[in-house]
């Protein structure tokens, strides 16, 4: 997740990583990681969140950007619940996989190299 500051709105963090702020802490599916009370607001402290979820935090000095890698909790999937993935369609319009609920989905990753 690219960042230009070390704070991030909780709703944006959820859309990009699948981790949502709940009373229990940061949760993805049934898995929750406790957060200090002062962090669990609408604006998250990225360094605290990175430490709690074992996410690498990378800084690129020339661009001034930060990049938060995925959580390191053993496996690529920490839950079988699909996060709300939203990607641009062929016309550039946002398409949410959640819109396909109620149907079986085969998600195929492909590239035109």
């Amino acid at each position, binding site marked *: *997740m*690219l960042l230009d500051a070390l704070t991030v709105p909780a709703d944006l963090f959820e859309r990009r990583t*699948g981790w949502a702020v709940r009373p229990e802490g940061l949760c993805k599916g049934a898995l929750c990681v406790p957060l200090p009370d002062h962090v669990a607001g609408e604006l998250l402290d990225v360094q605290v969140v990175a430490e709690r979820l*074992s*996410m*690498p*935090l*990378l800084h*690129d000095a*020339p*661009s001034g*950007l930060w*990049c*938060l*890698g*995925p*959580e*390191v*909790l*053993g*496996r*690529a*999937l*920490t*839950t*079988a*619940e*699909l*996060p709300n*993935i939203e990607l641009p369609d062929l016309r550039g319009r946002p398409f949410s*996989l*959640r819109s*396909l*609920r*109620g*149907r*079986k*989905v*085969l*998600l*195929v*990753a*492909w*590239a035109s*190299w």
Partner: protein
Amino acid sequence: MLGIVNVPSGVWIDERGVIIRPPETASPRRPAFLDREIPLDATPRQRALVEAVRNLRIDAETYLAALRDWVAHGSTSVYALPPDVVIERSRPRSRDEALAAAHFELGQHLHRSGDSVAAIPHFRAAHRLDPANWTYKRQAWSFVDPGQGANDVYDGDWLSDVLAIGPENYYPALDMEPPSAHEKRGG
């Protein structure tokens, strides 16, 4: 996000938005490249390339049969995995692999923003930290050579890297066996 490291990869998702099978090699039909002929006028590199792709292991028939079984039988299909097994069969993620993901995302952003030179060290770091991730490598190679051949920017190229691991290992073998008792116990 889901642990996809090569293409084509498929993920099965049920009507409730639950992943039924984690990413695995997915081809809807036998790829034409498996039967490609070597042109009579092929250069040594072209010959090696065709021979390598003909030896890639991709079992489209098994995959498609399993997919059709799941579509017909849903959660009672023998190919539908319970959530614990889906997680267990997803790719392991180490600290290095997570850091590689961050470098790759930053490299992609810089490249798309027009600073392709600044992107290179991040792509190189991603390759070093997660050498089994073919999407990281192929994306960067394709920026310097659409044919993903040898170049003076990155350490590898498609043919050299595939031959180094053996073409038969480029795509992991499909594991269409039902969950073992060990997996069902969450071991």
